[in-house]
């Protein structure tokens, strides 16, 4: 494991993974807790890879109230439209317009390409995310499963 700019990074099964973030297992998203009861959300490296090169990204408007597991927007790659769901309930307070303008940034830099910031309505939902010492094992298990299913190259 290495530390760069305060980020704890580790190479896990061929992926550069941030261990200091939390992960939403239902939708391949990372979550960074911010000050003031806010959280930033983005697609994790596996989510970015399985989505493919994004051609379109639509996000709900700033101010929209969202509920965990419900739509936060939509993604499109290779003419395939899929939902983007929120890992946390709250109010969307910022969207990353640079990524909306160039969705392919997500594939190039999943951790640098955050999607939304949410002001949390239920802080306790953070406890349901994968975080801390379990992140490395969780990520390795997912990679192994995806490779077993033929989703990822060996």
């Amino acid at each position, binding site marked *: 494991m290495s530390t760069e700019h305060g980020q704890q990074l580790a190479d896990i099964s061929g992926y550069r993974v941030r261990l200091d973030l939390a992960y939403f297992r239902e939708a391949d998203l990372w979550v960074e807790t911010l000050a003031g009861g806010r959280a930033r959300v983005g697609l994790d490296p596996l989510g970015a*890879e*399985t*989505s*493919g090169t994004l*051609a*379109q990204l*639509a996000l709900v*408007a700033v101010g929209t109230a969202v509920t965990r597991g419900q739509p936060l*927007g*939509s993604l*499109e*790659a*290779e*003419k*395939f*439209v*899929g*939902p983007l769901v929120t890992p946390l309930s709250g109010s969307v307070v910022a969207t990353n*317009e640079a990524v*909306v*303008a*160039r969705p392919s940034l997500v594939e190039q830099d999943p951790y640098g390409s955050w999607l939304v910031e949410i002001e949390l309505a239920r802080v306790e939902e953070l406890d349901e995310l994968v975080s801390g010492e379990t992140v490395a094992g969780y990520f390795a298990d997912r990679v192994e499963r*995806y490779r077993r*299913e*033929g*989703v*990822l190259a060996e």
Partner: protein
Amino acid sequence: MKAEQDARLRVLRFGRVSPLRSQTLWHAIAEGVSNGAPATLSFMRPDSPYVSVGYHHDLGQVDLDACERAGLPVYRRMVGGGAVYLDEGQLFFQITVAATDLPPARHDALSRLLTPALAAFDAAGLPAHLDRSGEILVGDRKVCGHGAGQIGNAVVVVGNLIECFHHETAAGLMRTPGRATAAEALRLMRRYVGPEEGSSVDPVAFEHAAVRSYAEALGREPSEGRLTGVEREALARWDRRLASPEWQAGPARRRSSAWQLKVRSGVYVVAAEHAGARVEASVVDGRLDALRLEDPEASGGASAAVQALRGRPLAEVPAVLADLGAAGRRLTAAFAAASGGEVAVTSRARAATSQEAR
């Protein structure tokens, strides 16, 4: 009983339906499959022409006035892709399965659900192949438009057997920046869309072969079926939704200053301006096919650059235009603005854009 039903491939044949129903039926089926209905292969044909736009597509790229004059409705669909002209010369098919039955990688899921269609195209008289971008082609001509989407817990892939294509009508319904780009769009549509003129296409053979091929690929027994109660209720809801102005407007998106028309995967007509420089170009598989360059300071040089650029990869644009000095940088920046999405953008072109902006 449930397990037995789940092992079937439900086949739904709707025949000729209204333009609205040719879209809303499969949205409703996706809700049904999401709620436990078996994997479903469906067929239908619109009984009159219309225009459809992909879920994220900018409605501004359709000439809505021309559509209105021609009496053609415009419906936004909940799958991807661009604006397409659809009419009774196209047989629609849709395969809808539970998302959990597919690999999580979208490219793989799409490939799995499009590949069985190839046997059907072959049976119809079109020996097609699937290219790396998921386009179904005969030679280099597109014979099937497709899109995919996840609706609830179901994934639907929609496609059409293009029996014949009305290129002039289709091109005339797209908004273009001028006559030259309209003419170029028509030229490329004639060149790359629809079966070769005189091709004999058999839609009945297509349907039969599609049922066999999808049943085999999915390991299911085909069984003729009908809509469930859940799907009939969903259909009424989707009828209202697709006909509403709010749905037609689509999700909020940033308007691009450039114009881009996709003819098929890898084939585009693009146009953009930057600081008085203007570029109009067609791009075929990453190479410049035809182009026009305008800049107030590069009259003679622009002609030479056009000759030099024709047939070259987009990535070489900055190097070729460098000889034109400031005009070349403006034109390169216009190219960078015109490109985007699936048309490659070079880092040098982006640098030129930044330099011009400063």
